[in-house]
């Protein structure tokens, strides 16, 4: 692996985007958008709900992992198991992990993307493929993370490689510091709303943080941004390294877009002007000012997931709920993104605050995000969630409505039982 070298990609002449830089590095030669490349992957990740198919494909190929150190299995999607089928699937995955020696993270360790970042497996400049569409999250630290299906992941595990079409990139510039109470989630929803659900399909989104945004948005916030690029169809969502990323990681010298790199389009978001956003059923790109839905009654509030289940998110919710009680008739579920987040929230008293306010706490993992367990929504119920999808039936009943929002907006909704207006959530 040439990951830690700081040389430029060989023979690079024309200015390159960050996506082109990483894929050129992987290909060992300069590559251009539209080119099809077969490249080595640095890490392949799979999860409890997909691993049975991955194992079946590997058995069909007659292959074991090419390099088990470059493979991770995380139990997060239906963890703990909701029924016997799932328990059996997890048993099979657990036995496969033990036999092959791949990295294995048990029920309760957390959401796959959070775990790979916390464990230091994901590093800047890597190519990471995952059997979860939100694998774009690794772009927070400028790793080219991309989601794929079970067969693609099995092929990557078996061969150590994958095929990719080198993408064009969309440039998203986020400028300035957001006002208090406005978060990276609001910025990310604004981005998806303006790009549209297929605004970046087959493309990489490259996010430039400028004029204070590079300090305002650390690793956690960048994970929220990179995570939601998927909802514009992105192949990867890369945040140009700056701020906290430079403090936490060695960043190779080549891992920056060239100044005159060519982008398919550019979008600018002035964070200083941004107000709380809401993504309204049943499409993620259906984004509006949260205040436009002020007063809408809410049955259930869910704070968690790979989008917004980190300590910063739980703190934002606790800040709203400190010394208060959630509204009568509202349920509130908090699912920390990982066991590390859970420990930290416990040490800081954040958990105490949330529980005293009336919230219940779930096992670290995906929670009810995709409507399988741990608190799915009933017919006709209205949910405010910090997750990343609000498709029809996503969280349970087909007639349930899911509104996507920041942790602060979600906590305010729990407090009053309504989507907050401008006075409470400016």
């Amino acid at each position, binding site marked *: 692996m040439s990951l830690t070298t700081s040389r430029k990609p060989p023979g690079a002449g024309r200015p390159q985007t960050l996506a082109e830089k990483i894929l050129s590095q992987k290909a060992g030669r300069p590559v251009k958008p539209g080119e099809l490349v077969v490249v080595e992957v640095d890490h392949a990740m799979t999860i409890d709900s997909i691993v049975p198919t991955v194992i079946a494909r590997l058995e069909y190929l007659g292959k074991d992992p090419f390099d088990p150190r470059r493979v991770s299995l995380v139990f997060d999607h*239906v963890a703990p198991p909701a029924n016997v089928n*799932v328990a059996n699937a997890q048993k099979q995955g657990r036995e496969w992990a033990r036999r092959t020696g791949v990295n294995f993270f048990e029920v309760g360790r957390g959401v796959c993307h959070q775990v790979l970042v916390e464990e230091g497996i994901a590093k800047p400049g890597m190519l990471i493929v995952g059997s979860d569409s939100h694998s774009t999250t690794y772009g927070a630290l400028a790793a080219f993370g991309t989601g794929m299906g079970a*067969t693609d992941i099995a092929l990557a595990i078996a061969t150590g*490689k994958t095929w990719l079409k080198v993408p064009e990139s969309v440039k998203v510039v986020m400028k300035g510091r957001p006002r208090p109470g406005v978060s990276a989630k609001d910025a990310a929803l604004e981005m998806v709303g303006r790009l549209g659900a*297929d605004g970046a399909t087959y493309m990489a989104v490259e996010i430039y943080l400028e004029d204070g945004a590079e300090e305002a948005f650390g690793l956690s916030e960048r994970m929220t941004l990179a995570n939601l690029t998927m909802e514009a169809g992105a192949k990867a969502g890369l945040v140009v390294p700056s701020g906290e990323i430079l403090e936490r990681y060695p960043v190779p010298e080549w891992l920056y877009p060239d100044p005159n790199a060519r982008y398919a389009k550019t979008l600018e978001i002035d964070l200083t002007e941004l107000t709380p956003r809401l993504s309204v059923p049943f499409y993620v790109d259906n984004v509006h000012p949260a205040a436009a839905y002020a007063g809408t009654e809410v049955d259930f509030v869910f704070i968690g997931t790979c989008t917004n289940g980190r300590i910063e998110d739980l703190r934002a919710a606790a800040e709203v709920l400190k010394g208060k009680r959630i509204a009568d008739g509202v349920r509130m579920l908090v699912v920390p993104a990982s066991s590390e987040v859970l420990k930290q929230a416990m040490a800081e008293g954040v958990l105490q605050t949330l529980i005293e306010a009336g919230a219940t706490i779930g096992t670290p993992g995906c929670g009810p995000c995709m409507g399988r367990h741990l608190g799915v929504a009933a017919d006709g119920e209205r949910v405010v969630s910090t997750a990343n999808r609000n498709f029809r039936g*996503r969280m349970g009943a087909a007639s349930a409505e899911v509104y996507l929002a920041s942790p602060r907006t979600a906590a305010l909704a729990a407090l009053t039982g309504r989507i907050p207006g401008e006075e409470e959530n400016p």
Partner: protein
Amino acid sequence: MTARVWKFGDDINTDDILPGKYAPFMVGEDRFHTFAFAHLRPEFAREVKPGDLLVFGKNAGLGSSREYAPEALKKLGIRATIAKSYARIFFRNLVNLGIVPFVSEEVVDALADGDEARLDLEAGRLYRGNEVFTLTPPPAFLLEALKAGSMLEYVKRHGRFPAE
């Protein structure tokens, strides 16, 4: 033999194609496909016949990477889809499973739900009554995989990816 056209709109996501709660590991490998389009078109899984043609608008298959969504369609006998455009993971999954993903704005606009049509997969031609539509085949790299049956079959047979 003609097949029925099942036409869907734009932005059909993989939660529409197979809701998460009906994933194979939730309800069993033997019956998950019977929940295809369970929320959107509950009659689909009961009435669809092998060889029927699925037609989508733009951004077909957005959302979750769940391969069991197209796998449910494969189990129901779908061998080809036509869309104005595809979300990328869904497109890869189709090729990996050996379902041929055609792209054509014109053909999608021309077809109506319930149409009877005949698809010549090899020639990339679609017949409806006296009309003939030509479909552009997928790119050479993917066509090579599809000719082997699927990307999985290709790699099993050759030990490498096409063009590697």
